[in-house]
């Protein structure tokens, strides 16, 4: 469903993503791990068509995001990192706008909005203005926007960032449930999340994949049986960069 083929992004002299390749199949939840600045968000932005890659290509359901961006974008639901929203709208208004822009009309639009509100437990704040929402609700509103058109591919950039433990649990359950019928790529810093909801995980560091496998395989790679130790072993920290 998602085929990433030697995706590269160069910002000036800095190579943010260096010839990255991987695939995500239907029914698979791929955890995208890596330290800050490893190129996770940049990769996701390229797959979703927000920024053009320097070289390489990404295909979503067989459609190239470079050759046919609008057709590919219809297949993707995307939750950006900071969960941006139009603060002057209500939750309901915002979701209706997103549904309309995705080409949904009439009852199909209303049904989609209703479904997304139910899935993300937004019923109690549906008529509330977005700028009065707490962070958890903001995140879920943005997640609801990604689910509206029932996309085959979901790309979630740190979907549990800033949520309380209860909300984290709910979102992980949601990802797991949605993962049965969709291809999901989600990035995270939280290593327990990998075991909790991923069927496979890759670790990226400085734009390159440094580890790839199912959670069990990754655990086996680690000498101590801890993902944190493996993560620390294969990635380089900021402080090591500064020292070098």
């Amino acid at each position: 469903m998602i085929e990433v083929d030697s995706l590269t992004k160069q910002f000036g002299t800095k190579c943010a993503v260096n010839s990255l390749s991987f695939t995500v199949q239907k029914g698979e939840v791929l955890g995208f791990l890596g330290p800050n600045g490893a190129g996770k968000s940049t990769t996701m932005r390229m797959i979703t068509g927000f920024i053009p890659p320097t070289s390489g290509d990404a295909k979503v359901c067989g459609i190239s995001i470079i050759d046919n961006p609008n057709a590919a974008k219809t297949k993707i639901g995307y939750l950006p990192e900071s969960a941006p929203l139009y603060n002057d709208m209500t939750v309901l208004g915002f979701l209706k706008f997103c549904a309309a822009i995705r080409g949904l009309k009439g009852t199909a639009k209303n049904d989609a909005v209703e479904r997304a509100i139910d899935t993300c437990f937004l019923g109690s704040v549906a008529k509330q203005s977005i700028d009065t929402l707490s962070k958890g609700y903001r995140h879920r509103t943005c997640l609801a926007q990604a689910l509206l058109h029932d996309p085959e591919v979901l790309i979630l950039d740190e979907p549990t960032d800033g949520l309380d433990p209860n909300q984290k649990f709910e979102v992980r359950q949601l990802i797991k449930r949605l993962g049965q019928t969709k291809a999901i790529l989600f990035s995270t810093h939280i290593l327990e999340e990998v075991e909790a909801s991923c069927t496979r995980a890759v670790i990226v560091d400085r734009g390159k994949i440094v580890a790839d496998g199912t959670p069990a395989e990754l655990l086996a790679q680690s000498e101590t049986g801890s993902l944190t130790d493996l993560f620390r072993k294969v990635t380089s920290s900021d402080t090591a960069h500064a020292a070098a």
Partner: protein
Amino acid sequence: MSSCTIYKRELSSYFSQPTAYAIIVIFLIFSLGLTFTFGEFMRTGDSSLEWTFLFWHPWVYMLLAPAVGMKLWADEQRTGTIELLGTFPVSTWSAIIGKFMAAATVWLIALILTFPIVATVNYLGNPDNGAIFAGYIGSFLVCCTFLSITMLVSACTRDQVVCLIVSVAICVLVVLCGYDPVTRELSKVVSPGVLEGIVAIGVWDHFSSLNSGLFRLKDFIWFGSIIFVCLLGTSAILSSKRA
């Protein structure tokens, strides 16, 4: 279709907040205030509205039009919603058109709300309504030109205040270039060729002819090309920022 959706969102955003109301009220106070004070509406007894009312519009627009357009892209970049817009299946152009039309609609409403002055001259005198209509079209085109300049600036920055200051500065320049007292002063220091160039940048040559009821193709081409170039520039800047 997607332009239409974005247009509706932007327009409702103007009216769900105090922005549009404040701008419209201030515009009405200023434009009508100038008409009755410096425009000497009551004393001149001129029912054409050319000098008493419409003449003041570019002066008011140069300060107020950027206030309507400044948020269009600056806010989108500051809050990060541009990332949502950029991953929806819509082209940058349809977003630009939708936003531009929404801002223009706010001004269209403001202009329509000046109807009492047209009713007044029709009651008091016997004006040429065709000429007044042409003046209104000229006024609206000046406003759209300033909005397109603001939109271009707004694509360059995520800070609305910076956008407002820079856009107002550019619009003031466009108004002053070609304004008679300014050109008279300039003619003393620059060569006629340069002066002609400066006048060509200015809005008056094109606005005044429409304001006097004259439909000249070259004026429409002037307004149209500036708007088009600014919108094209907006699209280029937005794309280059993502690269």
